[in-house]
């Protein structure tokens, strides 16, 4: 069992660290997107807007500029994202516009993937067909699940050593840190791994669905029901005027006594058009939000969709638990901290493996590989993330394809970190240099943010909007923690050096 834990953990650990880090950042993907788009307005935390007015604005705008689109998707502002967006899908692909909800003025932010890049990366990687990426992540997640369960079975003194930490004892200290990161946050680690698998279960285990629904259309219908996402019907080809969206939003809000989060108009301007309105996800555990479907021409209610069947509810709750979309800011910090503990669990597991085998003979090559991959992942991955954020401020705003260039920065930085780890003779030197670079980048990001021409930190603070400021603050906190740990490690190394060597 110990061997199973060690090898399942080790072989998937580097990928899992990247997944955990980007997944943890995804809990604040809207804040990161806001940080990466300083052109977006600082909407006051207590600002109020009327979703009906926003719906009315978008209806007029889209009828004029996107009347031939296949569908319109409108998102209303909430605690996470303080602007309203409209996306439409036409002949030339999709287009997106952003609206300041308080002044009803359109904003043109810089082109970026923002926090959504981390979110997509954590379950389907990048530069790979999405299905392959999801399969790779699925296999790694399954290995993590096996490692977590076998770790619990292997850990003989799980209750006795619950709060045990024996510092400055080499491998023993790493073991204690690994145990603390995993055992204290065990419910979260089990939940996030299991629900991660459930989220993409129809991809990983399609056979049951294929057997029950041999017809592809019936299968699509079953999947859409399971995900509580209705398929839009076909267009009739008969033109028809669109009912006032503001009235439909008002009707849904008064029925639910909760704000509307988004709406979708399929085949606008057609007699077969439908309007689906979704309820806000906040403080509802299930990811399957209640929705109302209206006939777009008459405004008549066609269906009220709410997960009723136990399988739909179970699926909705599991996806909701994983994504944490129900969480308000306090709960999201809990998610973030537990995700960070997950990163710590993987990192300490890797460091424990190397520290146990450091002085053993006969496994030099394996040891060298693991040590270098550790540096390139545990220090290199944060460098790549920070390079991605820094490139957002360094690249010209008008550069064409700048969103893709930001992603290039991410991968090039990661590759350079790997090359540096491989080429540097001394591993400790490589650690020191990469961690120093991490600190420099962490300190630079808030400064780059201050220099952004269309953004004012003071404006955000005055508006009580902490989303962008908290990204800067987290960078400073991260830098302080790394400097503190590096200082401690340096002190320890110095105390191990014989006095004669220090004197010379």
């Amino acid at each position, binding site marked *: 069992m110990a061997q199973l834990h060690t090898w399942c953990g080790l072989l998937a650990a580097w990928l899992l660290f990247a997944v955990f880090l980007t997944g943890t950042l995804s809990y604040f993907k809207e804040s990161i997107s806001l940080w990466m788009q300083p052109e977006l307005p600082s909407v006051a935390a207590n600002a109020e807007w009327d979703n009906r007015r926003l719906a009315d604005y978008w209806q007029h705008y889209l009828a004029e500029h996107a009347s031939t689109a296949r569908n319109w998707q409108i998102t209303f502002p909430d605690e996470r994202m303080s602007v309203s967006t409209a996306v439409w899908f036409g002949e030339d692909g999709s287009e997106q516009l952003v609206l300041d909800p308080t002044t009803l003025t359109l904003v043109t932010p810089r082109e970026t993937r923002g926090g959504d890049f981390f979110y997509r990366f954590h379950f389907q990687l990048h530069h790979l067909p999405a299905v392959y990426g999801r399969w790779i992540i699925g296999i790694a997640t399954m290995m993590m699940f096996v490692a977590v369960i076998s770790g619990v079975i292997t850990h003989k003194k799980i209750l*006795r050593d*619950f*709060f*045990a*930490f024996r*510092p400055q004892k080499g491998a023993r200290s790493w073991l204690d840190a690994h145990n*603390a990161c995993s055992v*204290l*946050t*065990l*419910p*979260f680690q089990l939940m996030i791994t299991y629900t991660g698998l459930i989220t993409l279960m129809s991809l990983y285990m399609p056979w049951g669905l294929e057997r029950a629904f041999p017809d592809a259309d019936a299968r699509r219908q079953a999947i859409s029901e399971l995900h509580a996402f209705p398929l839009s019907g076909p267009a009739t080809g008969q033109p028809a005027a669109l009912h006032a969206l503001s009235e439909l939003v008002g009707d849904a809000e008064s029925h639910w006594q909760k704000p509307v989060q988004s709406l979708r108009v399929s085949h606008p301007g057609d007699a077969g058009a439908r309007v689906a309105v979704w309820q806000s996800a906040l*403080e509802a*555990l299930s990811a399957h939000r209640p929705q109302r479907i209206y006939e777009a021409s008459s405004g008549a209610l066609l269906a009220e969709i709410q997960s009723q069947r136990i399988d739909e509810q179970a699926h909705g*709750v599991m996806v909701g*638990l994983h994504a944490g979309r*129900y969480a308000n800011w*306090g*709960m999201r910090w*809990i*998610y973030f*901290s*537990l995700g960070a*503990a997950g990163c710590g669990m993987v990192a300490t597991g890797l460091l424990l493996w190397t520290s146990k085998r450091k002085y053993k003979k006969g496994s030099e090559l394996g040891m060298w590989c693991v040590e270098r991959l550790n540096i390139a992942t545990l220090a290199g991955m944060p460098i790549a993330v920070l390079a991605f954020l820094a490139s957002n401020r360094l690249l010209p705003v008008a550069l064409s394809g700048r969103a893709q260039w930001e992603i290039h920065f991410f991968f090039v930085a990661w590759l350079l970190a790997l090359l540096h780890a491989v080429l540097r003779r001394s591993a400790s030197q490589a650690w020191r240099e990469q961690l120093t670079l991490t600190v420099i980048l962490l300190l630079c990001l808030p400064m780059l943010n201050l220099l952004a021409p269309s953004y004012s930190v003071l404006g955000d603070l005055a508006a009580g909007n902490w989303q962008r400021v908290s990204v800067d603050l987290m960078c400073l906190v991260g830098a302080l923690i790394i400097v503190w740990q590096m200082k401690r490690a340096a002190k320890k190394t110095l105390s191990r050096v014989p006095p004669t060597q220090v004197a010379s």
Partner: protein
Amino acid sequence: MMLITILALCTLGFTLIALSDNRHRRRCGLKPAQQKPWFWAGSAILGWPLWLAMETWSTGLGITLWLGCLSISAGVVFLGLAMFERLRQQL
């Protein structure tokens, strides 16, 4: 505010449980006879925030939040004990 109250109660509960452990009990100069009452008091305190969470939010959300808060506060107690031990050694 309720979230902070729940976190504080969980931290208190785990502190009592940690102090009932032999390793930490000796460091704090507690008697062996105090071990069991502290353990049960800590466990009882951990149950209280579950009730609070379920009252404030729904049952499902309450249990989810309670489990999350348990992990965070266990981490806080773990770090607190490690730092306390370091300070004790320095003094």
